[in-house]
């Protein structure tokens, strides 16, 4: 399977703490993307990191990519209750068609307690 797999499946932390989620994948990729889904809503694109990048920041989000280990991590710093959501990684595999097919993992459910 080309799907990414997130770890842990669920994460529960207090406001102000940092949240780290990991994603592993199996094939070479062009890029890896992270999405967020609030309960009962559609997914929202958060950040994209290309295969030639190692780290990327966007506000309180920090994404790293290690292509030798085929893994990525998403760090949310100083978490807030509003960060409570499911987070998915998605991979764009090398050799994939121009159809833009992404392979989504099953997600990490993050709960941030006030």
């Amino acid at each position, binding site marked *: 399977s080309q799907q990414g797999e997130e770890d842990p499946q669920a994460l529960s932390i207090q406001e102000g703490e940092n949240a780290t989620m990991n994603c592993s994948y199996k094939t070479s990729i062009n890029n890896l993307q992270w999405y967020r889904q609030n309960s009962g809503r559609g997914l929202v694109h958060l950040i994209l990191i290309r295969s030639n990048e190692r780290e990327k920041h966007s506000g309180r989000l920090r994404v790293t990519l290690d292509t030798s280990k085929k893994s990525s991590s998403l760090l949310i710093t100083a978490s807030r209750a509003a960060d409570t959501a499911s987070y998915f990684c998605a991979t764009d595999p090398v050799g994939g068609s121009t159809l*833009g097919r992404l392979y*989504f993992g099953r997600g990490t459910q993050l709960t941030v307690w006030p």
Partner: protein
Amino acid sequence: SQTIHQWPATLVQPVGSPLSLECTVEGTSNPNLYWYRQAAGRGLQLLFYSIGIDQISSEVPQNLSASRPQDRQFILSSKKLLLSDSGFYLCAWSQRGGISYEQYFGPGTRLTVT
């Protein structure tokens, strides 16, 4: 700016009844379009994708079908619903011919088959 609409937001249908879910995109042309299904607490399963009018590819065999009668309209249908068709259906689009294929999701349709 681009927007994506899905309707209805929720639907309760008896087994054996037909289904029609609609998705439309505004503010872009020639998008790639996708239908996903998400079971409770699970990841996304790609059902169909389309690169153009009447150009539909199916990922998994099932009793669902998709059509794209217009460039920015994507319809998911079934002639006879099964209990297993219950789930959260998401439509998404990405830019055709882009360098990276970020996907943009609609708000989803919650389908319950009774």
